[in-house]
């Protein structure tokens, strides 16, 4: 099971999904119209490390986080 968490202002409950890689996650999230804009501007982390492509294999227990645009300070 892979857990998907939405951080900061993204108002979505966390998901638990049976997926093998990030490629499989994209179409699942794209089905949700509320996520469209967030998918275009959010960064993705796997187990708290940012990734730059979808070519990432996932293992049972992994955690994916979506990080929308930031503004600290």
């Amino acid at each position, binding site marked *: 099971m892979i857990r998907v968490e939405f951080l900061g202002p993204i108002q979505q409950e966390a998901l638990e999904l049976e997926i093998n890689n990030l490629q499989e996650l994209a179409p699942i999230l*794209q089905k949700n119209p509320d996520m469209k804009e967030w*998918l275009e501007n959010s960064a993705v982390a796997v187990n708290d490390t940012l*990734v730059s492509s979808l070519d990432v294999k996932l293992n049972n227990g992994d955690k994916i*986080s979506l990080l929308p645009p930031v503004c600290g*300070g």
Partner: protein
Amino acid sequence: MLKLYDGALEVSDILKEWYEEEGKSNYGAYIPFVGTVRSEDGIDGLSFDIYEPILETWFKAWQEKAKAKGAVIKMAHSRGDVMLHESSYIASVFSPKRRVALEFIDEFVEDFKASAPIWKYDLIDGKRVYALDRSTAIKGSGILGVKK
């Protein structure tokens, strides 16, 4: 050193604490940057969410960069609400010579704005409104979006 606080920062206390920690460390320069909430666009204050695991990794990488230059970086940030004229952010660099510290604080604060996983909301009439127009997408964002 990275410290997170609930609500506004006690700026004088934090700057004093850091000064006392490093006062005898033989650093010639101590350069703090303090971010204070300004009155604009009718806001009552700002509010912040922080994702700590990635913030800590990001900060550790900057600590290593500072160490390589013989410097030390310290940062404090608020969680939750910070009202007008209160402060939510302090970054400070200590280094043997001023030039390193002046350049380092500039690079650090710029990368902080672009990369640190902190989300800002305007407080308006008791509501928290995400400050999207002032926010920056983290490098590499958008990989889950529809391919164009």
